[in-house]
Every structure is written in structure tokens, then in C-alpha cells.
């Protein structure tokens, strides 16, 4: 199969004057764990809903393994969804919920039962078939929703912020589990989230959405280390943007540059010089001691303020707090700085 799992061709979805999705081109490969990352209202959920068929593009085409599906109703698409609120049927028990797709297809009862048991094993809910959704915890409901969507062996599985309602610990556990389930079943997963850490943890590739457009598509390290735009630099992780006079002073060129806080080193005096490094002089404006590490705000020549994170490997709170108001020299590797557009 040479076709990509999903292809968007100039897909737009306008609600009146609002361009929820604006002429998006996109290709998602077969078997990929693909994340759509962006703030709320950036168009990622609308894209997902158009793939599922709950929403139709106002312009452009969507292809599922080469077949145009833009106008097909949801029940004619080989795609299943895990909903943000799980959308479990409250009047059916867990077994009936998971078996729903098979029941609709008219699969025989014994076969249905066998496959439901397999699915409940996969999501580690063996023996839960007779419970009602209302008797389950959030994490368990999440697993039922996953089993219900996977039992039909869809070509693509869509996940709409499925971990949003879980607490931090459970969320981290589910991230690892989702990834391992995806590798076992080998189905293309499209995962919508506004949580950059979640996207970085699980994805093969990430598309960063902003205002109905995709700002950047790439692997997690691409997106983190080489953000294409200042929006990506700011949204994925914390980033320092250097522009205007500061940029000119440091690099000799106009433009906007991004450098991650943990890549910057802090020195109290000029030590050695290396052509691979970039240097900047500044004054420490604030010191925030956070136990494991310290966050410094340093105003560099030219006016920009940079955030620097340093682990407290040898220093104590007394040492770092003394730095407030001091002149310092910052340095980072040239490779760690990226010129960003926009």
C-alpha cells in the first residue's frame, strides 16, 4: 500500500467568517502515531472531526488510503474515534459497549463475546464486561472507550484529547500504555492534544496548529529543537526569542532566533572562547530557586530578557540568590539556536 493513511488537500472548514481550518495540506503515514498539537481554537479538533465525518470541509478533499472520503457519513468510514468525554453508552454494560460496533455489523454472538474478551485483555480490563460505565473510574472508562474503538480494527484511530480528564499520574501511565497498544495493533493513531509534553512523549510526528493552519510538521525532536516559527518555539516547551537589537548584537544579523532555556550556560566572567559558541552579556534581573533547579531571568544587551534554567548540581540557594543584579556572560552552542519565521 503506497497511499498515505490520511491526506488533506487544501482542506478548509469555515464557520461563517471564522476560518477554523484554513487550506491545510497534510499527509499522515500508514502505521504512524501522529499528534495534532495546538491551543484551543487552533483547528486541530475540527481536522479530527472532518476525518471522522462529523464535520465536512467547506473546501478541499480528504483521502483515506487514497479513497476520497470528504462527503461520506461517519458510519461509512473505516475510522473510529475515542472521544474526549469517552461517550460510553450509559444504558449498556462494558461488554455491550465494546461489542457495539460488531453488533451493528451483525457479527454472531459467540464471535462477539470472544473478541470483546480479547479487547478487554488488551486494555487490562478482564472481567469488567458486566459492569456499567457509571461504576468505572475515569481511567477505566478511557480504556473501555479505547477497546470499543479498536474492536472494529479501523484503518485509522482518532483520539480527541482522551487523557484530558485524567490526573497527572494516570495520564503519564496511559501515555506509555497508548503507545505500546499502538505498536502492538499497528493501526495509525491520530492524537489531538493541547499538551505539548503528551505530544512529545508519544508521537512519531507532530503537527503544530495555530489559527487554522499548520505551523510545523516534524518529529518531536524537530519540533522541539528546531522550531520553524516563533509560535512553535513558544508553544512547545519554553523558549527564548531573541529579536531586534539583541539579535543584531549577538549574531550580526536581523531576524528572530529561538534558544531553549536549558541550553544556555551562565558564567560570571569571560572564560574561554570557542567559535562554535555564541556569547551574550547581561544582567541577572531575577533568580527563582526551585530546589532541583534554578530559573534565572537575564536581561541581555539590546533589551531582550532570557530565561535560563540550570540544575543545582553544586550550588545551594544561598549561592544562586547572590547572583541577583550581577553582570554575567551567557553562552550556548550555535547549533542550539534556530532562526525562526513569523
Amino acid at each position, binding site marked *: 500500500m503506497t497511499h498515505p493513511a490520511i491526506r488533506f488537500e487544501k482542506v478548509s472548514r469555515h464557520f461563517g467568517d471564522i476560518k477554523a481550518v484554513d487550506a491545510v495540506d497534510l499527509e499522515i503515514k500508514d502505521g504512524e502515531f501522529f499528534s495534532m498539537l495546538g491551543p484551543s481554537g487552533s483547528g486541530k479538533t475540527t481536522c479530527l472531526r472532518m476525518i471522522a465525518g462529523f464535520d465536512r470541509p467547506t473546501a478541499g478533499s480528504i483521502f483515506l488510503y487514497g479513497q476520497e472520503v470528504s462527503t461520506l457519513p461517519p458510519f461509512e468510514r473505516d475510522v473510529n474515534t475515542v*472521544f474526549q468525554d469517552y461517550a460510553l453508552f*450509559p444504558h449498556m454494560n462494558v461488554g455491550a459497549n465494546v461489542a*457495539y*460496533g460488531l453488533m*451493528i455489523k451483525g457479527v454472531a454472538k459467540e464471535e462477539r463475546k470472544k473478541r470483546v474478551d480479547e479487547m478487554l485483555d488488551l486494555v487490562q480490563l478482564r472481567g469488567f464486561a458486566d459492569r456499567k460505565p457509571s461504576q468505572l473510574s475515569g481511567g477505566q472508562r478511557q480504556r473501555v472507550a479505547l477497546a470499543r474503538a479498536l474492536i472494529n480494527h479501523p484503518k485509522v484511530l482518532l483520539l480527541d484529547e482522551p487523557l484530558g480528564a485524567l490526573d497527572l499520574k494516570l495520564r503519564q501511565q496511559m501515555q506509555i500504555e497508548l503507545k505500546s497498544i499502538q505498536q502492538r495493533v499497528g493501526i495509525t493513531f491520530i492524537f489531538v492534544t493541547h499538551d505539548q509534553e503528551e505530544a512529545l512523549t508519544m508521537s512519531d510526528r507532530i503537527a503544530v496548529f495555530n489559527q487554522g493552519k499548520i505551523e510545523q510538521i516534524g518529529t518531536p525532536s524537530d519540533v522541539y529543537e528546531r522550531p520553524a516559527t516563533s509560535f512553535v518555539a513558544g508553544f512547545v516547551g519554553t523558549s527564548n526569542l531573541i529579536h531586534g537589537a539583541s539579535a543584531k548584537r549577538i549574531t550580526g544579523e536581523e531576524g528572530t532566533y529561538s534558544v531553549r532555556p536549558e541550553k544556555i550556560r551562565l558564567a560570571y566572567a569571560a572564560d574561554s572562547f570557542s567559535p562554535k559558541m555564541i556569547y551574550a552579556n547581561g544582567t541577572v534581573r531575577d533568580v527563582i530557586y526551585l530546589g532541583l533547579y534554578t530559573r534565572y531571568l537575564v536581561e541581555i544587551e539590546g533589551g531582550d530578557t532570557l530565561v535560563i534554567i540550570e540544575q543545582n548540581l553544586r550550588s545551594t540557594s544561598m549561592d544562586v540568590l547572590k547572583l541577583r543584579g550581577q553582570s554575567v556572560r551567557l553562552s550556548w552552542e550555535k547549533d542550539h539556536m534556530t532562526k525562526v519565521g513569523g
Partner: protein
Amino acid sequence: MANRLSAFFFRNPKLVTLLLLSLPLAYMVVVYLGSLFALLINSFYYLEEFTGLVVKEFTLSTYGQLLKPANLGIFGRTAGMALAVTIMDAIIAFPLAYYIAKFASPRLRTYLYIAVTLPLWSSYIVRVYAWKLILSKEGIVSWFVDLLHLNFALDWVLSLPGIGGSSLSLSPIGMFIAFCYIWLPYMIVPIQTALERVPKSLLEASSDLGATPAQTLRTVILPLAFPGVVAGSIFTFSLTLGDFIVPQSLGNSRFFIGQAVYSYQGTAGNIPLAAAFTMGPIVIMIAYLLIARKLGAFDAL
């Protein structure tokens, strides 16, 4: 002083509850349960045929009278009408309630809600008489049927044994139409409420899992709307069961429970028999509510 009183009540929360509930409780016990109890007592007395006076002695003979074929016929007829009206109202109300709950814009929803409940603000006797005029031989329905040259169809319907009559207003069909109209809002509102509680994502999930809209209706929407239908049916069923205005204004001379009660306690002065008649619908409704509870109609309340 006011502070001390507040502090006193703060320290005695049970007293506050008692004060709050005393008035409605007194009303419920004295007026509501009291009248029901008086009814129950009266139904065990009997009317002395010669003197026409109520004899206050315990007897089951009044209940025995209920078992006469004519009286059993009244029960059967009324319960049959209540059931038919309930089913028809559910059929009419469901699509409308579904539209209001799931498709109408918030603005339109408000208007439709007002439109549905508006008739309840006007006198119900006036509306029943309006139907009498609409359905009469010279009324607008006959005129319209005549216009469409469908007289043969109307004549055929009116010639049906048991439910026909000389005109729509004088037939059980006319009663049925008026009943359906009058109690319809009581069916629409609970169904709408039940449907509004069904999140849209459930319908999307069903469709996503391969169900056609018809399959989604059968496997998801109807089961979830069912408690609302049962709640609505309690209104339509019990209101039809006890009504005497509609059977008096429309239909033929055959009695319904409400009419029987009305006439026995009135000119006939047979309070015991009227009371015994009243126990009929009460027993039917208790049975109905127990079944409804079994079906989960009150889980959502």
C-alpha cells in the same frame, strides 16, 4: 436580638428544617392525605335505596357494585382511552421533542418551548369546547373534508363500530383527538428533558461505530429517551383516567370514570359509590407507577 435568634437557629438546624416544612407538611397530611382517607372511608359505606341516605356502616357491597358489567365497562373504556391517548401522544411528541432538544437553535428552542406550553395558560374548558366546534358536523374539519371530496373516508371512519358516531364531536374518535391535544404538552416536556441529557457525543459515537441513523435511533436514542416517555405517560394516562370534562362535552352517552364519579356524587347523592369509583384510577395509577419505577422512569428525576 435578631442576631441571637439567628445564632439559635444556627445551633439547631433541625428546628429550621421543621419550621420550613411545617406548613407544606400540614397541608399534605391534613388536606391531601386527609381527603384521600375520607374517600377511602366513604367507599366502605353504602347508600340505602329507599331513603336515599348514606348508611355509615362498614360494607363491601359498594365495591361489589363496581363489578356490575356496566361499571366494569366504564373502567375498561376509560383505561383503553387512556392507553390509546398515551401511545398516540408519545408518537406525536417524540419527533417534536427530539427536534427541540437536538436540532433547534437556543433561540428557537425557547420559542418552541413557549409554544408547546402556551395552551396550558388558557382555560382548558374553553379549549375543549373549541374542539367540540371544530369537530362538529358543521365544523371546520367536516368543511375541509368536504373540500377535498373525502366524505366517504370520514363516513367510513364514523361507521366503525365502537369508536364511530353520527359526527366526530359525538364519537369516541372526537374524544380521542381532544384528549391527545390537551395532554400533549405533558408528554413533550419530559421527553425533551430526557433527550437534552443525552450528550451529542453519544450519537456521534454510535455513528462512528458504524450505526446508520435508524440503528442509532433504535439502540441509543430510544432507550435513553424511554424514562422521559414513561414520565410523560404518567401524566397523559392519569389525566385521561380522571377527566370528566372531555367525555361530557364530546363523545357519545357512554360513561367514563370521571363522569361516573361526577354524576354519582352530584344529583344521585351516592357518595360511597363515587368514592369507590375513584379508588379505581388510584389503584390503576399505583400499579402503573410501580411498573414505571421498575422500568427506570424515576432514575433520572
